[in-house]
Structure formats: C-alpha cells, structure tokens
C-alpha cells in the first residue's frame, strides 16, 4: 500500500513556487477585489444539465459549492467568482444518488447471510463509482448487532450509510433465524431507533418469513412506535400469502414493498399476472393508497416478464435500487448506474429515473434533507455521462434487452469533496517537466 507524500526536492521546488505564486496571487487578488467580487465559491460545476426533481429543475444550470454545502444554483455563475471551476458541459448533474436497498454489513462470520458477513459488501467500493452518495442497508442488522455494524462499517465509510433495522434482533444471520418471532421485539426496535440512532436508522425490515403476516405485523408495530416506514421482502410461504392483503390490510401508506418485479416459483405472488401479463388492479390501487414499490434488483428479484409489462401498462416503481450483495454484484445487477440504465432501456425517461433514485427515496425514508440540491443542503452531487451506443441489459434469468444509452458516473461529490472523478475532469493537465542537461 502506498500513501501520498512528496520527496524533499519536490517540496523545496514546490515551496519556492508557492512563494512566487503567493506574491502573484496577492497582486491578482488586489486587482480582482477592485474589479469584481472575491472568489467566494470553492467549486463551480459549470455548464451541466441539472436534473433536480424536488426543485423542478430540468435545464442547464451552474452549481456552486462552498465548503460542504450548495451555495448557489443559477443559469450562469461567472467562473471568476470561484476558486475552482469544472467544465461539465454535455453532462448531467443530479443530487447524489440514494441506493435505498443494499447490504453493506461486511464482516467475517462464515455462517451468516448478510449480517457481519462476506455477503455484505464494502460501501465505498460500489457507491461513488456509480454516483451513489447514500447507501441504505436493508435490514442486515437487527437491534442486537446494529452497534457492531455501526462501529465496523458505518463509522468507517466515506459513503453516507443509513439502515433499515431488521425486525429480528439478530438481523440477517440466516433464513432460519428470520423465523424467530420471539426475537421480533417492537419496543427494543423502537428504542434502538428513537433513543439511540434516530439519524442513522430510517426504517424497519421484514424478510424471508416462512409463516403468515407475523413478521410484517411486528415490523409495522415497530414502525409505528418509532414513526418510520417498514420495507418488506415478502413471500416464502406456500401457498403464497396475498399481496393484496399485505398492501391493503397490513401496510400503512408509506410502507415499502421491495423486489417489486420478482417472479419466482414458490411462495411469492407477483404483481403482474403470469398468464394475462396484466398488472393486478389492486397494485395500482395500493400505489394510489401510498404503498411504495421498490425495485431491489438483486440476484433473483428482477424479471423482465414483470417489469416490462408493468411499465407498458403505466405502473412505475417509486424507487429504483440495487439490492447490492455478493451474489448480485457480478450478475445482472452490477451496480446502480446499470440498473438505472436498464430502466432507460425499458423506456423510462431519464428524469423519471433520476426522481426514483434521489428525491423519491429521500422522501420515503423521511430524509428530506437529502436527494436534492437546494441552496444550503449538503453538497452530495453526481455528474453523469449519458453514453450512446449498443448496450445489453440482463434480468436474473439471463435474458437480455438492448438499449442505446448508458449512464456512467463521471464525478461524485460527497459533502463538497470530490470522491470519484472517472476522467480527471477536476484535475489539472500534467506537464512534462523541463529536462535540463
């Protein structure tokens, strides 16, 4: 491993240049101060097309950052008002993405599914390179092991990591452990959230339950006590439990159904009827009622036979997310930009895709401080290329559709700091040092 430092001759050279620069800068500063304002902006992203759904912006706009905050958004902010300007013309600029469904409780328990195990991935390895600045862990930890998750992952990550707390105290140790109704403790879940970690834990997860509605109901009970939404990976009981009952009787408006486009044999009812390929009428009614539909792509939960008919019939998911974990990372899912591009290929507009990865998830998890670039908000920003070409996108059965566009994360800022710069657009050109003989 190599960390940055500079050798002594470089340092001396650098210092002498700095002194000269300092004098020059001083002179320039006097000139500028007399002519224009001082350079009050730290970083200016100039010429990009801003998509900020919360603020109804979908046009060319400059974005100015001071410190870790959005300072100004305007049509033309002069470059000379900023210490540093990055030309992003031809690119899209959006709020930093929120991946609302991921598994990042990385650890070394060989017998665990995603709680403190290799099933959970390291957040920074996947987030910034896909424009993601906030990852929400979907219930890998429960109240018993959330403190470990926080110490070992959340506190060490550069990515903002939030979490749904598993309704089961042990979190996602195994499918078997998820059945333990005696370990579903609404009071402890609510205390963990309200008393200890109200800024990090944003909801409750119920998953992989083999019985009826007990797990969901305990999650909703926890959610009511803590005033947070629940997210449910529903259906491992044969015959399948009714999703209509889940949406209409058990969920509150604002609760989340994930793996929306899965179609699997055994236990899970699909939202699109497998014979007629029609979206079931109560699904529209549920969405109207305020039930949130999350993609949660994963390794087995995204099927074109569900997603494409649904889209064509006017049913759009509220949130686009990855369900990032060890088995999904190298399969059809790959990363957030790939999942988003898949929806572009299905026919969703770029604006609709960005809404579903920024402002929508922010509202769903009641973190309305995130997912937009309002003045004064934290400068979590993504800049994308929309590449043109021939691209293929797979679902979990390894069938593919083709597309002509693909999003690529060009630049990612987390709290005003550049944390990913694919082509070095924020870096100066290298100059060959003069060779003296």
């Amino acid at each position, binding site marked *: 491993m190599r960390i940055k430092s500079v050798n002594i001759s470089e340092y001396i050279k650098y210092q002498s240049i700095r002194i000269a620069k300092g004098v020059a800068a001083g002179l320039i500063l006097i000139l500028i101060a007399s002519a224009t304002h001082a350079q009050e902006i730290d970083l200016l992203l100039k010429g990009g097309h801003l998509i900020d759904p919360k603020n109804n912006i979908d046009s060319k706009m400059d974005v100015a950052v001071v410190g870790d905050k959005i300072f100004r958004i305007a049509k033309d902010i002069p470059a000379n008002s900023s210490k540093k300007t990055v030309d992003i013309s031809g690119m899209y600029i959006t709020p930093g993405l929120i991946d609302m469904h991921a598994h990042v409780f990385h650890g*070394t328990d060989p017998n665990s599914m995603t709680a403190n195990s290799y099933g959970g991935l390291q957040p920074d390895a996947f987030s910034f390179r896909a424009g993601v600045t906030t990852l929400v862990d979907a219930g890998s930890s429960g109240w018993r092991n959330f403190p470990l998750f926080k110490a070992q992952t959340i506190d060490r990550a550069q990515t903002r990591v939030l979490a749904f707390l598993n309704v089961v105290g042990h979190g996602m140790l195994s499918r078997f452990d998820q059945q333990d109704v005696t370990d579903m403790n609404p009071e402890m879940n609510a205390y963990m959230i309200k008393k200890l970690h109200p800024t990090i834990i944003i909801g409750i997860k119920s998953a992989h339950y083999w019985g009826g509605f007990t797990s969901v109901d305990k999650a909703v009970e926890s959610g009511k006590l803590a005033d947070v939404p629940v997210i449910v990976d529903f259906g491992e009981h044969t015959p399948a439990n009714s999703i209509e009952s889940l949406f209409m009787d058990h969920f509150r408006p604002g609760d989340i159904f994930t793996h929306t486009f899965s179609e699997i044999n055994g236990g899970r009812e699909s939202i699109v009827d497998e014979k007629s390929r029609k979206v079931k009428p109560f699904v529209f009614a549920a969405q109207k009622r305020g039930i949130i539909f999350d993609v949660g792509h994963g390794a087995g939960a995204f099927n074109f036979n569900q997603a494409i008919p649904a889209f064509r019939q006017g049913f759009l998911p509220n949130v686009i997310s990855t369900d990032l974990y060890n088995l999904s990372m190298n399969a059809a899912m790959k990363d957030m930009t790939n999942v988003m591009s898949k929806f572009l290929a299905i026919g969703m507009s770029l604006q609709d895709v960005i809404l579903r990865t920024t402002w929508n998830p922010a509202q769903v998890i009641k973190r309305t401080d995130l997912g937009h670039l309002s003045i004064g908000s934290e400068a979590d920003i993504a800049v994308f290329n929309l590449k043109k070409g021939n691209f293929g996108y797979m679902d979990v059965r390894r069938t*593919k559709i083709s597309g002509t566009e693909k999003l690529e994360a060009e630049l990612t800022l987390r709290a005003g700091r550049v944390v990913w710069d694919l082509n070095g657009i924020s870096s100066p050109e290298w100059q060959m040092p003069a060779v003296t003989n």
Partner: protein
Amino acid sequence: MDKLFKFKRSKSFFVVKPFIIAIIFFAGSTMVKAQDVDLLLKGGHLIDAKNNIDRKMDVAIKAGKIFRVAADIPASSAKKVLDVSGLIVAPGLINMHTHVYAGSNPGFTDGTSSQLPDAFAPRSGITTVVDAGTTGWRTFPDFKAKIIDNSMTRVLAFLSIAAGGYSVDKAQENIAEMDVQKTVETINKYPDNLVGVRIGRYDGTEWTPFDRASEAANLVNKPLFVECHLPMYSLEDQLSRMRAGDIMTHAFENVSERMTVVDDQGKVRPFVLAAQKRGVLFDVGHGGGGFWFNQGIPSFKQGLLPNSFGTDEHRTSMNSGMKTMLNVMSKYLNMGMTLPEVIARGSWNAAKSIKREDLGNLSEGSVADIAVLSLNKGKFGFVDSGNNKIEGDKKLEADLTIRGGRIIWDLNGLAANPYKQ
C-alpha cells in the same frame, strides 16, 4: 437479499422439453459431429503473448479448459457460441499487487482497508489476483480459509517475511519474528497459493529483514517482491541486492520514502536501467500514491517499462487515480504502449514473473481463464497520484470474464438470450 434463481416455468414446458431435446439430439448426431465444445468465442481478435498470436482467432472451451484455438471453428461444434467480433480476446488478467485480506478489523489484516477479490476482479477482466504480502507465515492460514478458498477469483499471494504480514503497526518490524524457516515451510505447504516472498515496512538501517526475505525467496526458488516503506535503504542498494526475477513494485512512485527512478534532470538513473537489464522486474503498484506521470512517462520513453500492472488495490486507491486495472492499463495505452504489449504485461509477463506459466496464456489444455475486452474510442482522462491528468482516446473495458470455463462477468449480456414477450 432476495431469493436466488427459482423461476416459474409452465408445466407444458417440462412436458415438451424432453421431446425437443430428443429431436435435437437425433438430428445433431446424424448431421454433424457431436457438439464437443462447451463454449465457443467466435470472431474475436486474440492476443496471446505466450503463443505469439495477435490476430482473429476462435477460442473453444471444453470442461473448463482451452480445447482449441483456430482461425475458424465451426459454430455447429459448440453447445454455445458467443459472437465476440470486434472485441479482444485475452488470457484472464493477472493483478500482481493487491491487498485482499478483507475483513472487519481496522487496517489491512482481516480488515476494511483490504478489498474483496470478487468485488473488483471479474468486472475488470481479472481472473487472478496476487496479494502483496498482507499476510505472513502466522496469518496466512486464516487468509486462505476466509478469502482464498471462498473466492471465484483465483487468489495467489506473496508471503511477507514479517510474521503477521503487512500492517501499519510496529510489531511487523520485529526482526525476531522474521523467520526464514517458517516462511519457507509455509510456502512449501501451500505451493498452489504462494508465489514469492515480500519485504515491506521496515524503518531500520540494518539489512537483516531484506536479506532474510531474499534468503527465503531463494530457498523456495521464487521471486522477492520489494514494496515501499523501506526509507533507510537506498534504491541503489535495494536493486543491487535483488536477483534477476525479483520484483520492485511502486516502480514509478515519487515519495519521500524512496529515491525516484527518474533523476531531477528527467533521466532514468543508469543503475536502475542496469538492474532492469540484469533481469530485475518492475511492477506498477499504482495505489493511491505510487504512480506519477513525471516518473512513468520519462521512464517509458527511456525504456524502463513495467513488467506487470499491479494496481495496489485497497480502500484508498480504488477511488483515486487508480480505479481499476483496466484504467491503469489504459494509461499505458495512451502513453504510447501498444495494445499487444499492454495485454502481454497484464497476462503472460505477470504469469512468468511469479513462475505460474500455467496462467496468462490460452494454449490448448490451459485453464479457461479469459478476458474479452472492448477497446473504446473517445475522449478520456487519466489521473496520477499527484492529481495530474493526461488525456487519451483509448480505454479498455471488460465485456466478458471467464474463470475456469465459467462466465463470471458479462457486461452487456453477450451470453444471455434475448427477452421475448
């Protein structure tokens, strides 16, 4: 976490399927030869340095091995055919410098500074990663059990002469723990995984640690891998103690800990060129601070070329100027290295340097570790550890990665069936 690979099929499919199979089998057996190839990569441009191939060639895979390489292998001989025309077919890449003892501790040892091999390798065309001495004789068995044995990526390793491997604490500098015998025993016990000995952090002036590492490497007839963090040893002394085949990583760094390979006048130091001539190998070892254009570019122009493109993969390098091994290789493409040279150094040269000549080539009978790459054209930028940028018009991307005959990465669904409503 969702439910994996359980799909609904209609009952009629199960009834019809055996008939279809029977008919196909019957027809196939009468018309053509049996389909003895599992997977055929057809129409790609093969670059296989070991076999001196740099032209359009089909590659057939059977039972996890390279079955045949020829100009035109009939599609009818394969169970599955992938059209890879317009793409480069190369041996699976070898990343010579990584830190992959990933776990939950702070730091590198079973820690969060190391990265999971499968999280970055398949998507970059890499089928083999070499861990750069994150473990020593005491910690290697744990690393093997936790990471090596559970990764799709082939994980090899240099063993640190320090008992606990690379870490940031001073304990690793305890000379008493730098045990030649135990290092040799460990390497002999795990010959399939361990490819050499690594000397890393040592702040002292005496040469015992270096000499012990070198002695251990010599005893097992494997290379010595020389890392940075040896501030009291001069570069010239280090190189003079290295044998032909030993590897100096972070070759093009510009840091206080080690003299640069390029002098203040922009010339590669003659003793460095002499060492290269003698057979000492240079690895990029890019990392967060280990690759500078003011070293890499003059070196390239004056003939000091990296033998391998180790990325020094770890938590802080991954999102910096390094990014991926293909990004590092693309830097060299845009600096002027030819594509066949770049591929050779990313595969066969790397394999030879760790004496794993079973890897890094697509000879018939070799394990089917393959990278299918596209060479994208456009306007790209590449950044060094000093945050300087060069521009370029070429960039490599991994379309398909095959490990032991199995597809472990498929960017655009080359091997997928088209969706039908």
